[in-house]
């Protein structure tokens, strides 16, 4: 036991003693691992978000179809839809975009009672009267908006809104740069009365096909379109995988360049190392002990590299919003509003990164060390 402790301590000393080599190897590890960890974190974040939002979302989405795109649905059918057997709730929404000064914001018009439970006011209260809105905290922060403040959207100076509260949401689909207002106000803002951009239909399990048949009777020749949860989920995943594929391809190239670099770097000072191993062997060390020492060194150096890479990735995501990497993952969403970049650093990818770094540095050092160690010491000491 003491022997292993001694070797461990000696390995740390060696790592500190050979600073240049340590730094170079760490940099190589960081260069290879950081993009990988960042990408995994973003993709995990998005996956989690999409699951939450799909779980929270309606069973059916109803829109009109205009030139193959989603278009507004007239509200006059709402009561009929609510009466269909198996429909538990039908929520009309208006989702649109507008500029608040120079920043694009997502505007959601929804009846007060239909606001999803995951949206909660962190200050102030939910809108009650006309021209009252609640604002996502990120947007509020950006414009220094507080409850009681008033603002107008660009190009709509006649309409003034009063902030009654700021909200945050568990799922960032109900995003941080969003403005929530009453259905009525949104209709007025976009100049479209008696229509919704979509109607969210919540149903009892197993009734979807019967409901679809009833909807057909209601709309008859109207150009309507229904999408269900699975479709949205599939769309989400498809976009996601496609982009992920592009990233993987690019990453593979970077990776192929990085590996030789790391091998060269960890083989740095090999002839000196060989001589040192010869001396160790000549003075009574055995091959296993030599290899144990070298392995400990590689463990430390890869641990150092992997931790640096993880810290850098966190900074990359949090401070630079995953620049150059995020765009590979954020697929366009038809139904759900845009959201800020989610990320999730799971222990497994971090652990894998460490093992990977360890593997690489080991490949770069263990074979040559083993060779040096089993040679007669006079040869390796030369």
């Amino acid at each position: 036991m003491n022997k292993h402790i001694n070797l461990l301590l000696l390995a740390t000393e060696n790592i500190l003693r050979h600073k240049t080599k340590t730094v170079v190897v760490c940099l190589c590890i960081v260069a290879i691992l950081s993009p990988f960890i960042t990408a995994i974190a973003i993709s995990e974040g998005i996956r989690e978000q999409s699951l939450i939002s799909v779980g929270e979302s309606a069973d059916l989405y109803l829109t009109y179809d205009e030139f193959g795109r989603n278009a507004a649905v007239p509200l006059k059918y709402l009561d009929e839809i609510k009466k269909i057997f198996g429909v538990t709730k039908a929520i009309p929404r208006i989702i649109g975009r507008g500029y608040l000064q120079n920043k694009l914001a997502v505007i959601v018009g929804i009846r007060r009672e239909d606001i999803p439970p995951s949206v909660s006011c962190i200050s102030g209260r939910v809108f009650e009267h006309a021209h009252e809105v609640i604002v996502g905290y990120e947007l509020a922060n950006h414009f220094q908006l507080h409850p009681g403040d008033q603002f107008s959207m660009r190009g709509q100076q006649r309409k003034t809104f009063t902030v009654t509260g700021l909200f945050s949401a568990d799922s960032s689909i109900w995003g941080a740069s969003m403005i929530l207002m009453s259905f009525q106000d949104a209709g007025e803002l976009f100049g479209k009365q008696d229509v919704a951009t979509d109607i969210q239909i919540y149903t009892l399990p197993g009734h979807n096909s019967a409901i679809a048949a009833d909807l057909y009777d209601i709309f008859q020749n109207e150009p309507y379109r229904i999408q269900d949860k699975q479709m949205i989920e599939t769309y989400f995943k498809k976009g996601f995988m496609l982009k992920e594929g592009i990233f993987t391809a690019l990453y593979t190239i970077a990776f192929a360049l990085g590996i030789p670099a790391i091998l060269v770097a960890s083989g740095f000072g090999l002839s000196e190392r060989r001589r040192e191993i010869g001396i160790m062997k000549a003075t009574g060390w055995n091959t296993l002990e030599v290899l144990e020492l070298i392995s400990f060194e590689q463990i430390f150096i890869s641990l150092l590299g992997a931790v640096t890479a993880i810290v850098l990735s966190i900074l990359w995501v949090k401070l630079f919003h995953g620049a150059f990497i995020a765009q590979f993952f954020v697929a366009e969403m038809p139904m759900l509003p845009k959201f800020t970049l989610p990320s999730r650093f799971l222990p497994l990818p971090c652990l894998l990164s460490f093992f990977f770094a360890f593997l690489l540095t080991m490949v770069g050092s263990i074979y040559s060390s083993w060779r040096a160690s089993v040679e007669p010491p006079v040869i390796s000491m030369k």
Partner: protein
Amino acid sequence: MIRTENLGKYYTSHSHHEVHAVRDVTITISKNSFVILKGPSGSGKTTLLNIIGTLDRPTEGRVRMCGEDITSFSDIALSRLRREKIGFIFQDFHLIPYLATWENVSYPLVPLGIDIRKRFERAKTLLEKVGLGDRLDHTPEELSGGQQQRVAIARALINNPEILIADEPTSNIDEETGEHIVEILTEQKSHGATILVATHDTRFERVADVIFRLKDGKLE
């Protein structure tokens, strides 16, 4: 104690010329004797010591140590033999350049699981013995050749070896220090060690029990 049988070591040079560094050497070294090996430069002294000290393998013949044929030993068994029985003082020191003298001296103790304080104490005692008590924290490049030689001697003594092999231990050293080294080796012998020294230094002849002479790799 040690017996070589028809030992031979051949090298093939770049010009495909075969060099017989050691040829057909058969010697017996008895326990607790002081043996010196003489011979002109290039006569094969270092080669022979390396083979006896298990640092090199012979091309032909065998070496027996305490009755065992060590030429057939595995890598791990050889390491063990070096650790438990042999102390080797190299002609060109072979110190690790970035380690302080005390660390160099106590390096063989690291894989034995001896803690750092004890390692330091043992190294300090030995370095004081070779007259370098005030150079514990210096690195080899801060030392003169003679001082490095003495660090190498201290390191060879760290395991209290039964067999002490020294390759020209006084060649880089002034008169007085040379005398001191002769004394140290003699003292080891008095503690029961077997000493094998390759040297031109006539001072060793006073204390030697046996003298072998090599010429062109052969025993004279």
